[in-house]
């Protein structure tokens, strides 16, 4: 199922249902990507957003490894080892694509030319700080890839994640405790429980799924506003 775009200026609580499943979450993110945008979808769950973009959305996908106008994942007989996405998964080349090298690809990101980038996260702060590259665990091998470049490299950075970790602790926090990927870079936070705006104005709930803003606010250590100011 998909939800309609919420009316401007009003927070919508979708009750009588549970939190969003992974596919539903991807569909909500896809719903909010403006027509004809240039979009980078991060590795992992964000990649699935592509499956929910309407065929006529006009959205053009960028992949950090040097392609604009990337097509869907390749079927078995289409696999070409020279053509993959950032997750090294074989993809396809629709008409109108363009290839470029890594310095040009990251110039495109760093220069602020992408409209939207969708990333996963360990934590997001109320100001929009992002932590998504490193758990900080002493035995973890650090690996950043393009995460820091993407974090600062799009006009809008959307994060998609579950709102709570497996141990029940919130992942939307006052201050990130995990090592940061970027400062004040996230604009919208898509979770199974709710969609938030984050940034200089703090946290504002746009939609909730199977819960109310008040219920969520009680479980979070941040102040959650509503679009309608209540």
């Amino acid at each position, binding site marked *: 199922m998909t939800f309609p775009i919420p009316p401007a200026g009003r927070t919508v609580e979708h009750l009588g249902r549970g939190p969003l499943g992974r596919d539903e979450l991807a569909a909500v993110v896809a719903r909010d990507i403006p027509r004809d945008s240039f979009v980078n979808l991060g590795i992992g769950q964000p990649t699935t957003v592509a499956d929910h973009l309407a065929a006529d959305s006009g959205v053009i996908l960028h992949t950090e490894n040097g392609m604009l106008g990337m097509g869907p994942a390749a079927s078995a007989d289409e696999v070409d080892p020279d053509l993959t996405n950032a997750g090294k998964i074989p993809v396809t080349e629709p008409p109108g694509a363009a290839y470029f090298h890594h310095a040009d690809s990251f110039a495109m990101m760093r220069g602020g030319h992408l409209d939207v980038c969708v990333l996963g996260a360990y934590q997001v702060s109320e100001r929009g700080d992002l932590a998504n590259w490193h758990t900080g665990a002493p035995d973890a*091998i*650090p690996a950043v890839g393009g995460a820091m470049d993407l974090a600062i490299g799009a006009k809008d950075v959307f994060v998609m994640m579950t709102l709570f970790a497996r141990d029940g602790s919130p992942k939307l926090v006052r201050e990130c405790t995990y090592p*940061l990927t970027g400062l004040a870079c996230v604009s919208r936070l898509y979770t199974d429980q709710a969609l938030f705006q984050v940034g200089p104005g703090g946290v504002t709930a746009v939609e909730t799924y199977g819960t109310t803003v008040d219920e969520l606010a009680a479980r979070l250590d941040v102040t959650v506003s509503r679009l309608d100011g209540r």
Partner: protein
Amino acid sequence: MTAITGDPDEAVAGIADGATVLVGGFGMAGMPVTLIEALIRQGATDLTVVSNNAGNGDTGLAALLAAGRVRKMICSFPRQSDSWVFDGLYREGRIELEVVPQGNLAERMRAAGAGIGAFFSPTGVGTLLAEGKERRTIDGREYVLEYPIKGDVALIGAYLGDRRGNLVYRKTARNFGPVMATAATLTIAEVRRVVELGELDPEAVVTPSIYVDRILDLSAAEASS
């Protein structure tokens, strides 16, 4: 002048111990596997390798690591599902690691090739990876100062080369190759096939011959092996 050979061992001759080697590829796409295998046979050791990843599976860069030839990796994403060789060396403390955000990695090599002394990048500001780096606010935005990464050698994979040394790539296998070619003192490219002068479209040449010192022609290598 670009030297063209069908012999992988000739292609990598003279790489010195202690060299900084830029290795192309993003995962296996664009990875110069035949050159790396030759480098293993060639024997240079104590290498610093600059590459996006730290090897996949047991071949290519992973095999070079497994052979104990690499002192230090400079890369953006060492930890992958199939990076067991690097993971093991790292956990045993047998290899040094410098993690660089992918775009800074590419831009630092571009700077080396383009004669830029250093540049202010917004990537990584306020993170662990910018600790100790010079910071500056320009026009209201925060930046960190990043320095060039220059290679003694670049090993890259391309699609076709012409007799002069001009290169074209194929799809997303282009990735780091064109940047690394500009950033190394000695650039060695493996290509599927060398074509005659005039067969590459001058509008579509990605790496002009000035950046290419040696080409390994894989079609000639196969024919003779």
